[in-house]
């Protein structure tokens, strides 16, 4: 037998008995320790920690039974089998011997074959025990390692996913993990035009692996939102990123949403998550955005669609995004919460964002204090209606003292149809512009101005869309659909942009020129109808231009209405809280 060499303790006062066991043990490759009585046996056991013990019963001084009791009372790290080896052969002796803590009983005289067989049998058991011991050691180490990884994961995840946007007063959210921490990822940020972007991502599985899968989304979401990219482009980029790094059987269900208070629209891309809901203040579902796409990370770029669904809202309400863990929340006894359950909890909770806290309490009560099977997360965004169309612009954050020093700077760009079809021109150009130090603090205002002027040139100049379409019921969708269609077919036309940074009467200004190759429009008539800043019935189109006027010191249309020139002052009036 190729087993481990054992250290065998033999306690017997008769030399020939000791000799017999020694011979067998040595032939099997084991070593022996010899004790002449019980006291010696206990002492050797304590100091030498043998693997196996042969114990005579009748010995001078401490007898074998007392020695076994003594040995069994010692603290033991591992099991050491004890075989009583005695001439006492009555059943009563054998039973009481085994009951004192011995593991086997061999009656003297015993043959060499029997002794060999006994030693081999116990050697096998000891091997088995060692294996179990090693395994449980390994398990303990793994467990400690897993706990350490989870702790580290939770820490990094918390830092990576924390963002200013999650503390927005319009937003409330909760996340109930199935394990130490959740694999669901919640992100929120304001875009440069003050739109609120949300993302709720739910990676397959839960815990650390799920969190790891969803992690790459954070940076891309925040980065692109800050640069002013629209939702469809963000969805495409997130998908591209995940597709490149995830194995075929991993994916991330995600909902992206954009709330544009100024234009009173909610735009949603949903791939693999439960319906996003627009819930009015009475708790009724007014609109649902069902999952229209496979989750992120499955489709290769050319097959992926970032197409969103935009809905204009006319009443205040709340946008609710959730992971599938919410409706599937199930206590140990069974019984999923269901969408009905979710709506019942919301309906009973009143109009504001506090409803989400009520929902969270309700879900926890439903789970009956158990962890869910899956991570459960939920975001609720207040969707306000602002009659006077107030909007916020991040105040330019610049040192007050000196007029910032800069040299004259100029940028001229021209985009033709082929590129206009797929490029996000505004974020790209904004990226260039805000590389100039003195312009950087004005990012929000410049984004709004540039978006309005560029989109007018594209939508009305080249695509010939009528903004009056937007004012009809369901018109916003129709407008967006028409826009997408015409843009895809655009094969002629050009938009030129020019930026010039210079000083006028000691003040820094940025002149912006946008020129499209379209037929123009009757700007005089348009502004007479809709130039006033506070008009409540002002058309969507007029609102945009009014906004640019509010932000710029001058705005001049020329040509056939296809050329516009705007002057933005760096020093003066572009401040926070402008109203359009």
């Amino acid at each position, binding site marked *: 037998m190729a087993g481990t060499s054992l250290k065998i303790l033999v306690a017997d006062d008769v030399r020939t008995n000791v000799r017999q066991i020694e011979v067998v043990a040595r032939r099997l490759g084991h070593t022996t320790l010899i004790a002449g009585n019980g006291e010696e046996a206990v002492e050797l056991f304590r100091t030498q920690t043998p693997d196996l013990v042969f114990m005579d019963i009748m010995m001078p001084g401490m007898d074998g039974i007392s020695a076994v009791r003594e040995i069994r009372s010692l603290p033991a790290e591992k099991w050491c089998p004890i075989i009583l080896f005695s001439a006492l052969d009555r059943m009563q002796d054998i039973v009481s011997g085994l009951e004192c803590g011995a593991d086997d009983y061999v009656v003297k005289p015993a043959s060499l074959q029997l002794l060999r067989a006994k030693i081999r049998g116990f050697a096998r058991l000891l091997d088995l025990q060692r294996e179990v011991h090693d395994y449980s050691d390994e398990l303990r180490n793994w467990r400690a390692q897993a706990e350490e990884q989870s702790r580290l994961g939770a820490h990094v995840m918390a830092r990576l996913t924390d963002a200013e946007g999650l503390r927005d007063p319009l937003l409330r959210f909760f996340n109930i993990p199935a394990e130490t921490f959740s694999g669901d990822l919640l992100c929120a940020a304001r875009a440069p035009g003050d739109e609120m972007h949300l993302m709720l991502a739910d990676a*397959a*599985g839960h815990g650390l692996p799920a969190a790891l899968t969803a992690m790459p989304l954070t940076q891309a979401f925040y980065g692109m939102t800050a640069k002013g990219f629209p939702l469809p482009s963000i969805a495409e980029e997130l998908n591209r990123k995940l597709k490149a790094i995830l194995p*075929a*059987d*991993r*994916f991330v*269900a995600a909902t992206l949403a954009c709330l544009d208070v100024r234009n009173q629209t909610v735009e949603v891309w949903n*791939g*693999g*998550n*439960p319906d996003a809901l627009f819930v009015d203040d009475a708790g009724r579902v007014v609109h649902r955005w*069902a*999952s*229209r*796409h*496979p*989750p992120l990370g*499955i*489709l290769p770029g050319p097959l992926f669609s970032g197409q969103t669904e935009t809905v204009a809202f006319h009443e205040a309400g709340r946008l609710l995004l959730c992971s*599938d863990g919410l409706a599937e929340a199930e206590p140990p006894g069974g019984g999923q919460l269901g969408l009905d359950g979710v709506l019942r909890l919301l309906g009973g909770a009143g109009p504001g964002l506090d409803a989400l806290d009520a929902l969270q309490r309700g879900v926890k009560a439903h789970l009956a204090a158990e962890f869910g099977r899956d991570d459960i997360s939920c975001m609720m965004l207040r969707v306000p209606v602002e009659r006077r169309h107030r909007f916020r612009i991040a105040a330019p954050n610049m040192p007050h003292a000196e007029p910032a020093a800069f040299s004259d700077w100029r940028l001229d760009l021209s985009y033709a149809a082929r590129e206009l079809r797929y490029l996000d021109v505004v974020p790209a150009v904004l990226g260039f512009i805000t590389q100039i130090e003195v312009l950087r603090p004005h990012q929000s205002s410049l984004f709004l101005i540039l978006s309005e002027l560029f989109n007018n040139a594209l939508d009305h100049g080249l695509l010939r869309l009528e903004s009056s379409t937007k004012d009809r019921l369901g018109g916003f969708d129709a407008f967006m659909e028409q826009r997408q269609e015409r843009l895809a077919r655009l094969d002629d036309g050009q938009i030129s942009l020019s930026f010039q940074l210079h000083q006028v009467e000691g003040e820094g200004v940025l002149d912006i020129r946008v020129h499209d190759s379209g037929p123009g429009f009757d700007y005089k008539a348009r502004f007479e109808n809709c130039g006033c800043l506070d008009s409540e019935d002002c058309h969507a189109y007029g609102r945009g231009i009014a906004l640019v006027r509010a932000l710029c010191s001058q705005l001049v249309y020329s040509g056939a209405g296809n050329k516009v020139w705007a002057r933005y002052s760096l020093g003066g009036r572009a401040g926070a809280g402008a109203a359009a």
Partner: protein
Amino acid sequence: MQITKDEAPGRTVLRLSGRFDFHSHRDFRGAYEKALESADVREIEVNFGNVDYLDSSALGMLLLLREKADAKGKQVTLAGLKGAVKQVLDIANFGKLFTIKA
């Protein structure tokens, strides 16, 4: 989860029953491996008629099968969809990734 296999010429049908979740990994892979290797099989149908639960790792296994089948020029079809199983596959828009049979 239990899987029974029907092998017709050119086509293998995997009939699943019970819960299709992360415990089913080895069984599911074992069930389709032979069909993937066989040059004669053009189509692998996964029948969900008796499946009562499906989780996201099951979706992952289907995607993995799809990728392997694509590489061998074979088609994967999903059949017998109803109830909760159909709902999960609908939300994930698997109709855009697989051929679905009524």
